[in-house]
Structure formats: C-alpha cells, structure tokens
C-alpha cells in the first residue's frame, strides 16, 4: 500500500517568503474585489481611489507613512521576541502604556530645552512598553507561564487603565463628549520632515536597521536564536537561555512602547482610547507575513499603512473601511498557503 506523507524540502527558495507575500497579496486583492462586487461597487474604481488618496499626493503619502510607523515599530518588537521563539500578542497594550508613560513624565517634569525633552519623552515611551511586558516576562522566565496568554491579557489591563485615566485622574474638563487627557504642549510635538510626515519615520528607519543588526549580525541575536532553538544546545554553548528570553521580551515591548510615544507626540497629541486602533494586532500580521525579517517588516508596514489610510478614505463613498482589514487578513492567509507549497513536498512512501 502506498502512503503519502509531508516532508520538509531540503532546499527552500531564498525568496520564498517574498513570493508567498506577492501571491497572498494577489489573493487578498481578489477576495477584496469579490466582496466589493457583491456590494455593487466597481473594484477598479474603489482601488484606484484608494491608491490616489493613500499615495497620490505628498499629503496623503505622508499620512500613509505616518500610519506605518506604529505598525513597523511594533512589528519589529514582535520579530525580536520571535528570535527566542516567543510570541508577543501584547503590542497593543504596550503601545498604550508607552503613551501613558510619556504623558506621566510630561505632566511631572519640565525641561526647557524642547529637543532634550522630546528625547526623554521618547525614552520614557520605550521604558513604558518594557514595563508593560515585565509581568509576562518575569512569569515566563521564572515560572514558565505561557506568554501568549499573559501578553494578551495585559492588553485588556492596560486598555482598562487607559479608560480609567482618561475618565478619572487625567480627564480634561474641556473634552466633553470624548474622554481624553489634556493635550501636550506644542513644544514637544515631533517636527515634520515633509508634508505631514513626522520625524518619527526617521526613528523608524533607524530602528529597522538596528533591529536588523541586532537580529542578524550581533552576538546577542545569534545567542537569542540558539536560546530559542534548543535548550540543550544553549546549555552546551554556555548561553543563559532565560536571560536572553527576558531581554528579548523587554526590548520587544520597548519597541511597541516607542510606537505609542511617537503616536502621542506626532499624531493624537493627547492620551485617549484612540492612541491605537488595533495597530498592535495588525503588527502581528505584518511581522508574520514577512517571516519576521526587519527589512520586510519595514516595507510591508508601509504598504499596510497605506492600505489602512485607503480603507479609511473610501468610507466617504459608502464603502466599509473593513475592506482594508479583510484584504490584510486574506493576504496573510494566502501567503501562509503558498508558503506551505514552498517549504513542503508530498512524498510517496511504501509501507511495510
């Protein structure tokens, strides 16, 4: 009797992830078109409008890139944690705590040199993100508690804390209907580079290069990969796997926290529930779709930022903005399916 089993291909095309992404994107756009057709919309009109309003002018292009910043930074954080084979589902909460930390420092200290002040605020955002993941990190390293669930639950704790702060201690009496904290002063706004593009994008480029170096080129990145691979290998190599996991988690959380700080200082200018609109979850898609590669995360992050803006603007012609979410999600499903065919082969074996 002949049996068919799956086996991993010995040679996987170097560009497999990239091709999978392209195939996934085509599938995503096709499914998006079908949904638009069902809703009596012409997909070509809708997509060209999306394209025009997301990258068609300096203003819209810079808006799209602004949206990409949190996706890229949080995505990089997720990919760093993935080096030690850990999942960070808590980027959403880390973004919020990053913004909360910025506001906390802003209220309590005052530095006249605004450049220095912005620098300190950005650092406090990073630390805020790290603090957010501290509980999952400690419980993971010390007791071995599953980090997927703890990082996920901290999201709800932090969002609950945000709601509490903007309705209670930090509530700005001037914001009547929408609970929010008071605006930060203009002296700590991040300057813009061109159009509406905030200088946070430069930080983003810097951190992408940093994450690439950290993951692929540095000793720490190499040790992280061994620590995440096999515990025996790590022991033989004298690598403290728990310590690597702990620091990878703190750094990963910090990246997302920084995203929250930039979002606050360049976009919303105040703490509210609108600091993140699911960026932390979309960032997981961005990171997963690229196979956790920093450069890929940067590029796909830009694309998804444009897609989000495009989705938001087509609401004006009566198309649901959820079409963008659906395209993003189905792109990833398509990429996963094609990834399968790049990495596995179906082998025929003779039993007995």
């Amino acid at each position, binding site marked *: 009797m002949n049996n068919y089993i799956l086996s991993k291909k010995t040679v996987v095309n170097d560009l497999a992830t990239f091709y999978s992404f392209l195939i996934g994107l085509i599938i995503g756009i096709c499914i998006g078109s079908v949904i638009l057709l069902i809703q009596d919309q012409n997909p070509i009109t809708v997509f060209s409008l999306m394209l025009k309003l997301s990258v068609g002018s300096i203003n819209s292009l810079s808006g799209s890139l602004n949206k990409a910043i949190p996706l890229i930074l949080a995505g990089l954080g997720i990919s760093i944690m993935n080096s030690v084979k850990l*999942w960070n589902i808590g980027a959403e909460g880390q973004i919020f705590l990053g913004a909360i930390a910025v506001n906390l420092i802003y209220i309590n200290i005052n530095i006249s040199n605004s450049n220095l002040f912005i620098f300190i605020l950005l650092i406090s955002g990073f630390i805020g993100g790290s603090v957010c993941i501290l509980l999952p990190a400690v419980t993971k390293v010390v007791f071995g508690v599953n980090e*997927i*669930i703890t990082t*996920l639950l901290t999201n709800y704790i932090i969002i609950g804390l945000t709601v509490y702060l903007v309705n209670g201690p930090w509530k700005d009496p001037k914001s009547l209907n929408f609970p929010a904290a008071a605006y930060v002063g203009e002296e700590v706004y991040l300057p813009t580079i061109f159009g509406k593009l905030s200088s946070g994008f430069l930080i983003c480029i810097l951190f992408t290069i940093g994450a690439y170096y950290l993951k692929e080129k540095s000793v720490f990145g190499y040790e992280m990969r061994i620590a995440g691979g096999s515990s025996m290998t790590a022991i033989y190599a004298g690598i403290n796997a728990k310590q690597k996991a702990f620091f990878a988690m703190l750094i990963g959380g910090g990246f997302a926290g920084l995203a929250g700080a930039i979002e606050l200082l360049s976009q919303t200018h105040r703490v509210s529930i609108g600091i993140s609109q699911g960026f932390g979850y979309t960032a997981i898609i961005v990171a997963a779709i690229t196979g956790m590669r920093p450069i890929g995360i940067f590029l796909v992050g830009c694309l998804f930022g444009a897609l989000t803006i495009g989705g938001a603007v087509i609401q004006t012609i009566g198309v649901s903005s959820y079409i963008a979410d*659906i395209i993003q999600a189905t792109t990833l*499903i398509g990429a996963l*399916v094609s990834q399968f065919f790049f990495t596995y082969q179906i082998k025929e074996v003779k039993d007995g």
Partner: protein
Amino acid sequence: MVDIQLMGLLNATLQAATLLFIAALGELIAEKTGILNLGVEGMISIGAVTGFMTAINTENLFLSIIVGVLSASIFSSIHAFVTVILKQDQTVSGLILTILGLALSSLLGKKYVGKKLMVKIESIRDIAEPSNILEVLLNQNFIFYLAILLMITTSFVLKKTMFGRRLEAVGEDSTASDSMGLKINKTQFIGTCVGGAFAGLSGVYLTLSYVPYWTDNMTSGRGWICLALVIFGGWKPYRTALGALLFGFLEALVPRLQTYGFELSPYLVKIAPYLITIIVLVILTIYKEGKTGAPGNIGRPFFRENR
C-alpha cells in the same frame, strides 16, 4: 428588596456566564486535540451576525440558531485547514481568524445596525423581577440548560468514552497516537470545527438573547476571556464553568456597583478578571510544577515524518 437586587445580580451572572462558557467549552475541545485557536472572538462575531441576520429576515429562531452555529463552524475550518492540513503557525492563523471575523461580521451586519429584532429566544418563564433562586433559573432560556447539558456531556465523553480518550491522546502525544493508528489530521480538524460551532452558539446567544441587537465589535473582548477561561479551568469542563461563573459575576457586578454605594471605580473593577486570570495562571503553574493541565502537543503541528 435586597433579595430582588441579589437575585437580579445572580440572573445577570448566569446570563453572562452562559455566553462565556459555551465558547470556552468549544475552545477546550479544540485545544484537547492539540489545536490552539486564538480566533474565538472572530468566530463568536460570525455566529452572532449570521444568526441575527437570519432572525431578522426569516423570524425563524430555530433556523437562525442553526445558521449561526454552522457558519461559525465553517469559518473555523479556515483555521483547521491552515494549521492541520498545511501545518502553519497556529498563533498567526488564529489571530487572522479574529481580525477577519470581526471585519467580515461588521461588513455583513452593516445594514442591520439599529434594527429591532421581532423574535427573541424566550426564557422558560418570563419573570421580570425574580425573587428566589428557582425563579432565576426559570428565567433563563433553553441555551442556558443546553450549556449545562454540554458541560456534563463533554466531561463524560472526554473522561469515560473511547472517543474522548482518543481525542485526548491526539492532543497529548500525536506521534504516539499516530503509531497506534489514530487519525491525527481528522481528529484535529473535527475538534477545531466543533470548537467553532460552540463559539457560534455563543454568538447566537449574544445577539438573540443577551443583547438583542447588532452593533460593530459587540463581542468586546469576550472571546479572549474564553481563552483565559480554558487555562483558568485547567482544561477541565467543570472548572471552566466555575471560571465562567466568576467572570460572569464580575461582568454583572460592574454596572451595579454604584447602586450598592461602593466608591470603587467601575473602570478599575473591569480590569479585575484579567488580573485574576494571570494570578491563577501563575499559581497553577507553580503549584503543579508546570503541569497546568495543558495538552502536551498544544500549538505544535504534527508531521508524519517525525515518527
């Protein structure tokens, strides 16, 4: 008077707990076969919206429940296909299910926002202000009793029947199960779809009974609590039900706190269930030296080749 208030709280607790418990039980079954599905939130949404749409258009409750359950189950087969057949990452796939489910349900339900439901799943006996426990129990609808039945059945099947033992064996050690001749892929596929069906029932309960209307994101994070409940319950149906009661109680308590004259901020009380789950999770892990009751193979794809 106090009695009526207390019974009102109990009533709300049971309703909130039913909603959480059914989906959590489904997730428990899926996880028992070794498949972690983070898409509970999305599956509940799909069940909720399709059930609601059918109810508005046909005013046939039985049909609405069937449609809600089936569509959530079919939706969950995406996860089954990607993780069981294609062996891709379960975390990523489950998360897509949540994002896709929320987006799709908002898209489908767009025309139904604010529409009034003419039919509703009736309670056994409608009592406006139940004054004793019996009346509270009678005030629940049949899905509440179905949930109890499902709890008993699931526990029995998992512990006492050959089918249940096989199911658990697959999740515990798929390689050993495979050499025993069990069908790994089939078991996991069915487990995932059953989980989806349960989540769908939860969704139907949400829109046809708990809050009989439809708005975007009305699951509001309950799917994630279900995932926490499974861990809280140590992958055991009865303990999961206990967890559901606790979470349901907190959900019911929050809007009532002020009438009881407490100064606690309702926003902070809402955080409590999540904190409690983390604490319970940590205690369970320490107490049982890492044996939280989690199936041995959870989250790990199975390869025949590894045999």
